[in-house]
């Protein structure tokens, strides 16, 4: 099994013919993801990367039975792209775009919820189930098939953790990049639920960062419902309050969202918290041995 994306994924790429969309669509095709085509309004009927281009997501659903979408459109239009995907009946919408206004996301998320769809991101690296489907911008070659699930807000930090796991001989079930924005479709808790309930996942790596209280909420869920070993790292112990550390969501404000608070909540939930990001792989290996 695994979660979210697999061999049954029929992926439509929104922003298909743009430079980002083209590049990553070809990378995903090369990885073996079932990319059924893409959407670029006004270019419907053309062919791109040997696949059909549609004017609307609804057409991609009607003609090619797309069930998953990945969004590469620019930030000013990305909120609309999410809403379009939800209205077209796409069940899983993965938004890579960085820099979407918060106001647009509040509305887009509520529309996604109303349609019963799931949103991953925005401002995220995507989701990969190694050996089956890569729906994102991560480098496919560092991943291996296996049973460790990952949840993370950040791209390269996820790759770092995956690389350590692969080098320690541990493959991954599914890696979920949930995104670094203040409004995201799928939280640490949502992703933890998916992986806890996945029979093919034997351990979970949870990577958090300063800002908000999503890690504390995930800790509360895991404390109550956790059935598998979890290793966590929180980035930003050295970040000063009031400064946004790259990600829009990574900011300690009003004394809330510090790394120390998060680590305490996670440790209190029986989660193994590593202080150094260099120790993630070895710690998972020791818990599983």
């Amino acid at each position, binding site marked *: 099994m695994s979660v979210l994306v697999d061999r049954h994924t029929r992926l439509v790429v929104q922003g298909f013919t743009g430079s980002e969309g083209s590049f990553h669509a070809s990378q995903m095709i090369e990885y073996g993801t079932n990319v059924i085509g893409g959407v670029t309004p006004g270019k419907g009927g053309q062919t791109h990367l040997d696949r059909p281009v549609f004017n609307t997501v609804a057409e991609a659903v009607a003609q090619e039975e797309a069930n998953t979408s990945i969004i590469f459109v620019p930030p000013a239009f990305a909120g609309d792209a999410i809403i379009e995907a939800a209205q077209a009946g796409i069940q899983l919408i993965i938004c890579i775009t960085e820099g979407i206004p918060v106001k647009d996301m509040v*509305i887009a998320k509520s529309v996604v919820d109303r349609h019963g769809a799931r949103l991953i991101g925005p401002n995220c690296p995507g989701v990969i189930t190694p050996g089956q489907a890569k729906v994102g911008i991560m480098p496919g070659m560092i991943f291996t098939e296996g049973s460790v699930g990952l949840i993370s807000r*950040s791209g390269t930090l996820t790759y770092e953790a995956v690389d350590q796991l692969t080098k320690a001989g541990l493959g991954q079930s599914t890696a979920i990049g949930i995104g670094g924005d203040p409004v995201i479709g799928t939280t640490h808790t949502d992703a933890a639920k998916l992986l806890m309930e996945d029979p093919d996942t034997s351990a979970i790596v949870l990577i958090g960062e300063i800002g908000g209280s999503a890690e504390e909420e995930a800790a509360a869920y895991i404390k109550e419902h956790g059935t598998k070993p979890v290793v966590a790292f929180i980035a930003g112990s050295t970040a000063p309050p009031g400064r946004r550390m790259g990600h829009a969501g990574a900011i300690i404000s009003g004394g809330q969202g510090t790394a120390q608070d998060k680590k305490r909540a996670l440790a209190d939930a029986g989660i193994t918290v590593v202080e150094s990001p260099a120790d993630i792989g070895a710690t998972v290996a020791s818990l599983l041995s």
Partner: protein
Amino acid sequence: MNIHEYQAKTLLAEHGVAVPAGKAATTTAEATKIAQDIFDGGSSLVVVKAQIHAGGRGKGKTKKSGAKGVILCRSVEEATAAAESLLGDVLVTIQTGEAGQEVKTVYVTDGVDIESEFYLSILLDRTRSQHVVMASTEGGVEIEQVAEETPDKIIKEWVEPGLSLQPSQARRLAFALGLQGDALKSGVKLFMKLFAFYDKTDASMVEVNPLVLTPDQQVIALDAKVTFDENALYRHDDLMALRDESEENPLELEASKFGLNYIKLDGNVGCMVNGAGLAMATMDIIKLSGGEPANFLDVGGGANVETVKNGFRIILEDPNVKGILINIFGGIVRCDRVANGVLEAIKDPEIAKKVEQIPIIVRLQGTNAEEAKEIIDGSGLNVISAVLLKEAAEEVSKIFAA
């Protein structure tokens, strides 16, 4: 993006939110004139407030004159003296650090009579992904303190996505603050207008502390702190014009011009990383290795010769830097190309001169990492290469062991 109080008050007034009369002044003469007008209007108190972005002005002090950042004045002469003591001086507050911030503008405003003080703010509730309006009877106090000690004194109204604050919600807030009669009407109007302002301008926070009730039953915003969502500024040219670059760190400002996300910190090990999460993790590893991070620097997805060169230049502007750790996880970007970029950047004469005394640790991982290490090891330059994050950490420790 932060703006000054006087800018916030002007915007609020334009959007129909009641604020005390007041104007900004950049000279003592201007300040005197504004104060005169306010006293002529029948007021008995004028407040002169230093305009810097940092908070804690009321408790802050200027370096030369020792004046507080917020001064109450009973006469035009006092207002003149207050403006004189602030303008051109440097104000140090709990938020500015020791360097302080130069006061180039003062806000001269009517010190209205107050019957009661409240707290009001609008921001995003991340847990619910909804905008929330928060009010409290505990005005003039830090809201964090209220949240900690008496959380039941904070009233919240969550706004439905895509809608405005509803009149029923505004009424609930007003009733909870104990407003009645004319005060109730005035309060409801202010809450609705303030949310409309927040929504229309893509604000990320509006905080009014204190919100006050005057003896004639008017609810007005005595103070206002407004920040805007940077991601939405592209659709607000008028707001973009309010940016005061002199309030921003010059190195951070320069870095942003090269597409680099740089934040200056107080430590001694500079770092250059691709990706915000990995950049924070790299700062943490510097600390665990016995150093203190001198900066946060995310070079983003495209680590090429130009970005690396500019990154080096900006890190080296900081005299506290005793070592530099470059940590790039090559995914789609190939490490051997990044390695060549780093070497080329270091050969730049200006950079070469500065890095002679400073150890540089380059950690490249991911695609073609081994080839990258060979390129760096074979370069003959004073650069230490590492492949694993653990190895990089050990190299940082060596700087401080020596």
